[in-house]
């Protein structure tokens, strides 16, 4: 009986040890020196590069747009309330969020700027803060100013 109990507890312990799903993730290198380039390294690297992009079958485009806009809102809200505000960092992150959603040119997408405005509203920015951030991102283009204002005002 004792042996059975020990075995049972061992199995239980093993189940705790291995609980939680493991994620599939490549730990390959994106860079190799010319002398050590190999096709396997390239394919591993491609796997890592592709890791963040889903297949076309697995994502609904409608859901993806909504998810993208919400990510822009959330990130904007978090960014504007954090102590460091580097615009280069902000644009780089929006680009990453956009590329992950399948959009290569977010600067031409009106919905992005509306979402940026919504993010600023979520962060409860003061009017002067809002004006400054809006001006920085609008590239002096009226439609971008209007879109951000629309998002902020809703």
């Amino acid at each position, binding site marked *: 009986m004792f042996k059975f109990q020990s075995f049972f507890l061992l199995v239980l312990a093993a189940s705790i040890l*291995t609980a*939680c799903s493991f994620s599939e993730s490549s730990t390959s290198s994106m860079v190799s020196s010319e002398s050590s380039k190999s096709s396997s390294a390239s394919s591993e690297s491609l796997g890592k590069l592709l890791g963040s992009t889903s297949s076309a079958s697995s994502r609904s485009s409608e859901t993806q747009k909504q998810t993208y806009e919400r990510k822009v809102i959330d990130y904007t809200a978090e960014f504007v309330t954090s102590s460091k505000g580097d615009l280069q960092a902000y644009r780089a992150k929006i680009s990453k969020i956009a590329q992950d959603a399948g959009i290569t040119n977010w600067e031409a997408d009106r919905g992005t700027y509306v979402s940026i405005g919504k993010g600023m509203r979520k962060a409860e920015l003061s009017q002067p803060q809002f004006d400054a951030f809006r001006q920085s991102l609008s590239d002096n283009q009226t439609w971008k100013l209007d879109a951000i204002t629309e998002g902020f005002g809703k």
Partner: protein
Amino acid sequence: MHKPAKFTALQLWLLLVCSLTSELALGLDYLYINANEGSASGGHAAIGFDQEIFHFQHVPTGWLRIVREEFPEFRFRYTERENRTIYRHHLELPGPTESRLRESFNRVLLIEDSQYERLEALQADERLLTAWLGQYPDDTQPIQSAEILAKGVGIFFPEGWNPQQTIRTTNPAQTLLELAEDLRKQYGPDFISQTTEQLQQELQQLRPEPLDVKALQLKEDALFSSKPAFSERYTESLQALAALQVLNNALAPEPSKLIHLNPTLAPWDKQTAQTLKVYRAKLKNQLLAMPQSNRSDWGFSLLVGMARLIALDESLVRNQWVVLSLREDERSVALHPDQLDEAATWAKLRWQSAQAGLTQALEEWGYVRLEQAANLIHEIELAKREQRSPNLRAIKFSPIGAASVVASPPEQDKAELLAYLQNRQTYLAEFENQMGALYGYQLVGRNCASEIFRQIDLSLKGEDQNDIQLYPEVGEPVDGAGLALIPFLAFESVRLNWHVKTSEVFPSRRLRLLTQSETQANPYWLQLRESNVVTAQFYRWHSGDSIFLIFSDDLSWLRPIAGGFNLASGLGQTVWGLFAVPFDGGANLHKGAIGFLMSLPELVFFNIRKGSNPELEYLATD
């Protein structure tokens, strides 16, 4: 008829016939996913809000990382592909409480993603610097070139690109000749050459920024925000250079990067032509603005945009749909035979749905949908012609076109480069150290189940962790440090302590098919046929699963007997594996050992292994 050993009474009482498109009611959902071989032998836990699911995965570094998914895909992956059953408790909550909880999990995701992105960027910096320095960083040999993978470059240079090489075009793309001309008219006749020269100088002068290890303080409640890392800026500059070279030489994309759709599948008419002409004009204006963009990654956008412009022009000339290929052949994953007909119908529906966006207001979102759907129907048709199974997983959501680019080192001596590398390595070591301290998986104290309860605590109890006013809306706090560490016990703790309104079961694929088929066939014959790997039709063994003979997940008192048979088969493979080591590198030995271990719990009525279906593809609907 077999009865599951676990949650038997609950399953029989609560089993609902759920379609794969069932919606979740508003509120909070606590989910338990039962175990299977490989990814989670102890089961898994998740929390959901409406269609959004959050769960903590154990990543290869040994940390826990939060992931957010949509429920339909989450459900498909676990129940269909991994053949596991999902159990769900649903609570109804007041709107503000639900929002508060959902926001807190969203925020965790945002912050963790920012930290992981920075980590990956630092690792890329280290690799690039190491590649330049070579095997002997402190000798007198010159710094050598390295290779970087850059997205977009492969659309025009599929075999790789060397910025130093002169390109000679024998058949310039008219589209790009015109685009280059318009660019010069807008910004000046020397714009392309001047911008190219400027980028080359920037590349030579680009230096990794010094990183202050002492200032590094990662926090789980603070976004990590920083300028793009050195390797990111370097790659972006190379992409921009590649784009300008393509434009200057009017290079056409590699022919395999454009797909021409069968007109029978994708009819063409005057209205389509007119709509695409309007979109083409918009796209062209956007491309003209790109080199002046404040974004540092405009090069990739320009590469993709130029290829799309060429595709549009070909469409208009040929009166036939031509789009950029989204195929990336990193590995072949043939579609499950059961899904062939479904996939063909589904792809046609995606195409029809995408066509609805063909209006004068077409923008990149709408064009991307058309591009995706076109790729899917093309792949299915091509697979039919080539008499193979389609590889839908190779069709990506957006253009990637990655290729190797020769990265010449900047003008500096080895000692300076070595100093940058050492700075990066020190900083990276501390970064990883702090990430481990924040997110390390711990056998006792921190796993996917406990982390959910901890985040709920943090969210509901306020900053000082003393405010318990909101908690009664959920129920009594569950101690994530006790037995609730174990996912299936955590699920039971939720049932006992929270205000669970309803509970549901989403059965695994095998159990679902068994239930559905019982009305169509002799149930005893069906159970017998599907009880083992040899005669089962609902499961096909593959090398990703260990060898086993009998399915034990739907057995109760017979489970130890099944375990005995499975143990024997695992042992057999292990013994075979011992002899096969010189030939297979230990693959059979490893699999046999796993099979043996997975069978042991069956001897004491525990089931882990259920077989899996990795070929199944989730076909998202709009």
